[in-house]
């Protein structure tokens, strides 16, 4: 398949994302940050970070990491003048010291005319994207439809698929919503999972669960995402050209986890990529745009990612096991100690990602000394955070006050406290895939609807 990228013809395999094809062609900068015009590139791989919007056939703001190449489309980058690669307005970033956050409130405050002019200029240079072309705007048509399923499952990873099968197995009607192909992050990870009587790699189990879901008459699978829970009980699901208005009796949240970014200067540089984004590029898109990698971790994930990278032919020059916050405190029990035999392992801290436009090197502090390690990939493999937004929001809306949230939901037992709501898998903070347990939760939700 071929498509046009800024005048060049790029090729891609069916199913491959637009971002991966652009990366493969040797272009790491996908966009520029909004205010300081910093270069940004592929980071999360799962439509979370917002660092990869492109314009496709005149429609701006298309997430390139999750949008597959269709063939024949015209793709261009946004933001950046004259181009996202060489942005002259980059000056704003280089002068960041002189234009600190909030500078617009100090500027021209006693010169109203100048302030108004400055605002117009800022408007011209800041405006991201482009306005959709009239054709593109008119091509966007959204119809609405009411969905009457008893159980709505948000997320079609290992846990979501298992829960949907559980619910449908007990006789409930089920709608399962998932963006893109079923399987979730499990399809790009390396863990071993047990489901029923079988034990197999996660990707295999995910594939089997996905096929079972697709083959099940009682499960409607929607390619889209769950927008949010509204106070009248309606849960809109946004799909291509369609908004499904769902009013399920039970909501199962199986939205997985988020990768957590590392905190160091330059952590937004193209070439700094979160663990699942790396896994997805290698396993799902099957693209290897890197040569030398540094992996940063606070646990066991680093080793797994390093192995995946080496299998793909990327040289892993260091695995930095973060010291301090998040690292395992007990000597002997921590992953660091178990990994000490591996000469790639450094017990230290990532201090900075370097490179003018894209990542060229990583500063790592070990025993008080900073070493600069050349690399074109810094894979950030920290412990993920549950993606439980939908469940929190469901509770927040039910409570109806800001005070309730101010009091803090963190650590609340999400599944037991709200009737009509269950949370499974990584979204519930489960540390490993447990499709049997998710299946049981789904079955309980489903059979409750029968009575």
């Amino acid at each position, binding site marked *: 398949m071929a498509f046009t990228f800024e005048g060049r013809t790029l090729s891609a395999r069916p199913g491959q994302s637009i971002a991966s094809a652009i990366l493969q062609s040797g272009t790491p900068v996908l966009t520029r940050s*909004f205010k300081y015009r910093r270069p940004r590139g592929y980071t999360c791989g799962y439509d979370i970070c917002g660092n990869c919007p492109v314009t496709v056939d005149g429609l701006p703001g298309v997430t390139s990491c999750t949008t597959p190449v269709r063939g024949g489309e015209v793709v261009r980058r946004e933001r950046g003048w004259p181009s996202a690669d060489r942005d002259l307005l980059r000056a704003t970033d280089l002068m960041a010291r002189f234009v600190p956050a909030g500078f617009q*409130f100090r500027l*021209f405050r006693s010169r109203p005319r100048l302030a108004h002019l400055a605002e117009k200029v800022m408007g011209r240079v800041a405006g991201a994207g482009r306005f959709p072309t009239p054709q593109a705007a*008119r091509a966007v048509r959204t119809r609405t439809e009411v969905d009457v399923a008893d159980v709505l499952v948000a997320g079609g990873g290992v846990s979501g698929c298992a829960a949907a099968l559980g619910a449908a197995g007990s006789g409930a009607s089920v709608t399962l919503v998932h963006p893109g192909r079923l399987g979730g992050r499990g399809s790009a990870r390396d863990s071993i999972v047990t489901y029923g009587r079988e034990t197999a790699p996660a990707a295999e189990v995910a594939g089997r669960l996905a096929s079972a879901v697709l083959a099940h008459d009682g499960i409607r699978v929607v390619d889209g995402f769950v927008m949010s829970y*509204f106070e009248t009980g309606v849960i809109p699901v946004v799909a291509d050209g369609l908004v499904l208005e769902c009013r399920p009796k039970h909501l199962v949240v199986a939205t997985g986890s988020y990768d957590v970014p590392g905190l160091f200067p330059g952590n937004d540089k193209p070439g700094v990529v979160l663990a699942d984004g790396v896994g997805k590029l290698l396993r799902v898109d099957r693209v290897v745009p890197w040569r030398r990698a540094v992996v940063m971790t606070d646990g066991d994930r680093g080793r797994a990612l390093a192995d995946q990278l080496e299998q793909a032919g990327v040289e892993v020059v260091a695995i930095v096991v973060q010291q301090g916050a998040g690292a395992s405190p007990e000597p002997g029990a921590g992953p660091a100690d178990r990994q000490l035999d591996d000469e790639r392992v450094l017990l230290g801290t990532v201090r900075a990602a370097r490179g003018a436009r894209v990542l060229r090197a990583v500063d790592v502090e070990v025993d008080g000394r900073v070493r600069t390690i050349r690399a074109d990939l810094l894979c950030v493999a920290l412990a993920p955070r549950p993606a439980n937004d939908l469940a929190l929001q469901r509770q927040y809306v039910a409570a109806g006050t800001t005070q309730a949230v101010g009091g803090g939901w963190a650590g609340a037992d999400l599944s037991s406290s709200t009737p009509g709501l269950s949370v499974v898998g990584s979204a519930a903070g489960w540390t490993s895939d447990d499709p049997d347990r998710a299946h049981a939760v789904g079955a309980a939700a489903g059979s409750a609807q029968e009575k």
Partner: protein
Amino acid sequence: MTLPGVATGRPRAGYDVVVVGAGVQGLATAYELARSGVTNVAVLDRSWPGGGASGRNGEMIRSAFSSREWAQLFDLSLRRFSELSAELDFNILFSPSGYLVLSTTDEELRRQDLVAAKQAEYGVQSEVLDAAEVRRLVPHANPELARGGIFQRRAGFAHHDAVVWGYLRAAARAGVSVFSGVDVHAVLTSGGRVTGVRTDGGDIAADVVVNAAGAYSDDLNLTADVHLPLVKARLEMIVTEPVKPFLRCAVATPHLLGYCHQTARGEFVGGTELPGHDETDSLNTTYHMLRDMATKWVRLFPDLGGVRILRNWAGTVSQAPDLAPVLGEAPGVSGYHLSIAWVYGFMGAPAAGRLLAESITTGRVPDVMAPFDARRLIEGRSIAESTLVVTTDGRS
């Protein structure tokens, strides 16, 4: 994190003036009091400054209204907006890009000349635009809905947080103490006079209390036995991802019950209403309003069809039957002043703060403020204003 200008520690046992509510109204009033020499002032808010409607509104500013009362009050405000950045030493990002009230129906088109003539009579300059002129001003608008309009060139919008922060800092610099996290439970009175307020941290004495409690102003009134026919109402808005500038001025469409503008960053910001009040103080957004907004804004600007909504939010206000604010001393309780029932309270704040401070410090009610006295509601008089983008549910 506390905002610069918010006091640390607890309020003292007494002040000359206690203002309830650190929204734009309360802060503007406190600032103007301090400017006229009354600096022993405390502003108390249960939440953070600007956490109410003042940080949730459409930021739109105009004075081209159809009634003398509204036009004169808001024209004073508009003039203040153009001075505020310099005066507060804080750029409030006031953008005098113009404010267009669209005409869609035959009736609206017929009335435009009459409305503009009245505005001229009140000293407010506006221009009547025909379809071609509207088209030149807002080329992306659907011509079926944009058939004419009244354009006020000096009007526009400002950054609502910046206005709150600007007033907050300037008031604090002048000696006012602004407290966040203090809940006022009641207004204390004795023998028809205000004596202070009761808070979750104890009583605070004051000879003057200002009610600027936004959506909750009626609840506060009841504690002082002041009964006015106010209702709470929830309003909702959306903001899209940024796009290149396509809309220069602020636009209101009475026909669609909507108001919108595009920020300097490129985001399109708009709110709509449906007939009937949404009488609640819930800050949840609703699906039917999200749908209403998406549908109406794409109808007015078809090219927005491909642009994504980034966020939506809700805010709450209190409303009088005639939708005009209530400004001045409360009937029956001397020393208890009201700046409440604001539906257009962002654009009205610079004038209201100044006028209310003047009436508190001099004891004389300025002419521009007099019509907004609370007694009109008790006596069943209303101020007739026909260019508002708010539903009236047929009561006024």
